[in-house]
């Protein structure tokens, strides 16, 4: 998944390799190189006939394995039995962690799950050829949290409209604030905006008209 493959020609194999590595911005250890055609500068009977070298360079995307290895080790060191499943699409990794103590890795309002997701994302993308968004869930927590936020947004929007006042929500991370904003985007009786600095930034629902 997500391997990067290029073909490169050069006057010699060495030149083709160095051009390809430069283009991919990687070192030789990170890639697999196949020689498709050797260069030659002398043809038969001494007739000068130049032929370029052509190589194929493959930069492997190991993001799913990296995520799996890292999270397995992390769960192990946390003393938790866990099964990790990584679904790899070209642009993101969807990770599901099955464990009997999911509360430990979710934390308050998903704080621990977000921290594990953030660290895993850095570990995965440190050396990977393409950027992968990493989403980690356990016990369908993210889906349930999203449903909770949609209900909350609609309830507080009603409160703002009824009272003709602004209603502030509790501080949320950017992902959760976006859910609130998008839930209420179509409601023309209110407007939403965020105030404050991270990590205390929160959404305000304001009654208009």
């Amino acid at each position, binding site marked *: 998944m997500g391997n990067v493959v290029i073909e490169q020609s050069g006057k010699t194999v060495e030149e083709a390799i160095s051009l390809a590595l430069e283009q991919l911005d990687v070192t030789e250890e990170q890639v697999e190189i196949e020689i498709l055609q050797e260069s030659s500068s002398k043809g038969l009977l001494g007739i000068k006939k130049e032929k370029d070298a052509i190589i194929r360079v493959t930069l492997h995307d190991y993001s799913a394995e990296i995520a799996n290895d890292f999270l397995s080790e992390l769960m192990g060191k946390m003393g938790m039995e866990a099964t990790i499943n990584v679904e790899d699409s070209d642009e993101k990794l969807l990770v599901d962690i099955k464990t009997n103590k999911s509360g*430990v890795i979710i934390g308050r309002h998903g704080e621990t799950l*977000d921290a594990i997701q953030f660290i895993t994302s850095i570990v995965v993308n440190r050396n990977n050829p393409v950027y992968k968004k990493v989403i980690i869930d356990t016990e369908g927590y993210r889906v349930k949290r999203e449903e909770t936020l949609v209900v909350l947004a609609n309830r507080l929007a009603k409160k703002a409209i009824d009272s003709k006042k602004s209603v502030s929500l509790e501080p949320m991370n950017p992902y959760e604030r976006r859910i609130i904003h998008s839930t209420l985007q179509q409601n023309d009786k209110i407007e939403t905006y965020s105030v404050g600095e991270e990590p205390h930034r929160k959404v305000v629902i304001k009654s208009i008209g």
Partner: protein
Amino acid sequence: MGDMMKELLEVIAKSLVDHPEQVSVNQKDNDGVIILELSVAEEDMGKVIGKHGRIAKAIRTVIKAYAIKENIKAVVEIVQ
């Protein structure tokens, strides 16, 4: 349980830095609170702290989750 926590911090730190062999964690007990002193290569400091301390905060959150599970008190300090 402190030893497992030390190893947990080492695993996280080693996965983030360019020089994992220079990662070390020194564990101290201060009146029932376990203090984990994390030290990394100087050029790796940013890798464990992050922009606005975001990585350090995430590391502390994971360690805290483990500490709560084991019913212990722990603090992570990043030392030079």
